[in-house]
């Protein structure tokens, strides 16, 4: 390729007719098209990247009122059997047995080297665990769970959509359909009737805002989605704003900010490892990669995930190399996610740095389009979380 031609970038690559053919459709595809969505391939699915409002307005509307996201591409899995919780603990450095009925928790599947196979949400729904995993990882996750937990029934849910209603108005919008949602706290789960459909509802999301995630039978999904977007406070939101919202909220995107080469401690996810699974806890260790992960918890990791704020106006995206100073030519890290943050109105990025350079306030150097530019290490998140604790 002689030139990166003008205005021919991934975002401008048009209908992508050849690749779109192999993609799976979401159950709400017709509704997305009716709403004017621009569809792009993502994790094997044809997904709405934005609606006519555009990424910026969609992002700001979610922070100011509420947005509805179709995240039906994500994997929904049920774990059944008396020993499901105990078995699931052998795959994650997380307290599963201690999770009360009606509550949800963030989890991480680890490999033998202490790397992250996937990040997920799991809920105790009484006689089973309900697990939501990343779309790109779901086949591998299910195969891994079946292989590692032979006594547990691992059922993939293939007939339910997943919607996320996010933003400060989410509670008032959803309470018009089910008044009891006001009693739910962050990470509570309940089965509720919404627009005549039985829904598995959690008070959670991935935007840094209050909100709800709703699993609903595919047959009922469109009716529910229409009931929600009919509300004047709700805008449909595409993948573009989903990405900038989670980035400002300092949340990891699997395959970018975390993967099998990053450990939970390096990734700044030690908060997801409860005391009971750490050295000295009643159920310490006993998960893949425990040697490395427990050692990093005790001694600290060699590198860590940080917030990064480019000092100029140019966004710095995934892959931009990082150096200790403008004069240094030895790469010390790289940006793993980056974009313009519509709420903070500056570029924002995340990446990994050696621990001695990871303190907020440190100024490091990044190479962008052949030129060096200063970047400040900042605390995460960039925008304060707005959860209803």
């Amino acid at each position, binding site marked *: 390729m002689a*030139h990166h031609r003008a205005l021919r970038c*991934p975002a401008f690559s048009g209908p992508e007719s050849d690749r779109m053919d192999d993609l799976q459709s979401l159950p709400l595809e017709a509704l997305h098209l009716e709403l004017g969505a621009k569809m792009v391939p993502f994790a094997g699915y044809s997904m709405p990247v934005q609606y006519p409002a555009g990424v910026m307005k969609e992002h700001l509307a979610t922070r100011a009122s509420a947005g509805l996201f179709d995240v039906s591409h994500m994997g929904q899995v049920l774990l059944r059997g008396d020993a499901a919780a105990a078995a699931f603990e052998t795959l994650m450095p997380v307290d599963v047995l201690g999770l009360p009925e009606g509550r949800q928790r963030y989890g991480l599947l680890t490999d033998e080297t202490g790397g992250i196979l996937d990040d997920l949400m799991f809920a105790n729904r009484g006689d089973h665990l309900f697990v939501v995993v990343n779309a790109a990882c779901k086949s591998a996750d299910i195969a891994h769970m079946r292989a590692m937990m032979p006594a547990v029934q691992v059922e993939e849910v293939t007939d339910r959509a997943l919607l996320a209603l996010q933003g400060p108005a989410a509670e008032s919008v959803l309470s018009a359909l089910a008044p009891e949602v006001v009693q739910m706290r962050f990470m509570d789960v309940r089965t509720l009737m919404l627009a005549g459909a039985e829904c598995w509802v959690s008070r959670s999301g991935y935007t840094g805002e209050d909100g709800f995630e709703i699993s609903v039978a595919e047959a009922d999904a469109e009716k529910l989605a229409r009931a929600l977007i009919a509300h004047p406070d709700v805008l449909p939101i595409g993948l573009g704003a989903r990405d900038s919202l989670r980035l400002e909220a300092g949340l990891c995107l699997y395959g970018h900010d975390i993967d099998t080469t990053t450990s939970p401690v390096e990734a700044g996810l030690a908060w997801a490892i409860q005391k009971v699974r750490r050295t000295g806890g009643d159920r310490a260790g006993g998960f893949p990669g425990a040697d490395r992960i427990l050692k990093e918890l005790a001694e600290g990791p060699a590198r860590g995930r940080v917030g990064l704020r480019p000092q100029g106006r140019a966004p710095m995206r995934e892959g931009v190399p990082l150096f200790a100073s403008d004069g240094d030519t030895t790469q010390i890290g790289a940006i793993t996610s980056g974009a313009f943050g519509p709420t903070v109105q500056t570029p924002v990025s995340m990446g990994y740095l050696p621990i001695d350079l990871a303190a907020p306030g440190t100024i490091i150097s990044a190479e962008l389009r052949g030129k060096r530019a200063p970047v400040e290490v900042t605390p995460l998140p960039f925008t304060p979380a707005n959860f209803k604790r």
Partner: protein
Amino acid sequence: MKFTEEHEWLREEDGEIVVGITEHAAEQLGDIVFVELPEVGTEVSKDDECVVIESVKAASDILAPLDGEITEVNEMLVEDPGKINEDPMGDAWFFKIKPSEPSQMDDYMTEAEYKDMIS
């Protein structure tokens, strides 16, 4: 006014060519958040990358449509990149170029031809 396959518009003005991007391009790129302009006085060859624009989605380049010298740049865009989405065909021009080979303009499309291309 002429149009390039890369969605630039070119308008002749007192022997110079004013360059911007089309409404179609601005719409496809989405909200633009960053612009880096060339320096006035730079000699460019046709197809040199001379502007970087970043939208909420990705980075793109704008190429010099002609050989010549950059005589003026629209500094307002650096302060207010969103102007490109608001008025791409008017106030939000990027740069002016004094062509050394004015006949290169003949290679580009008319408005009708450009509209055909994007339809």
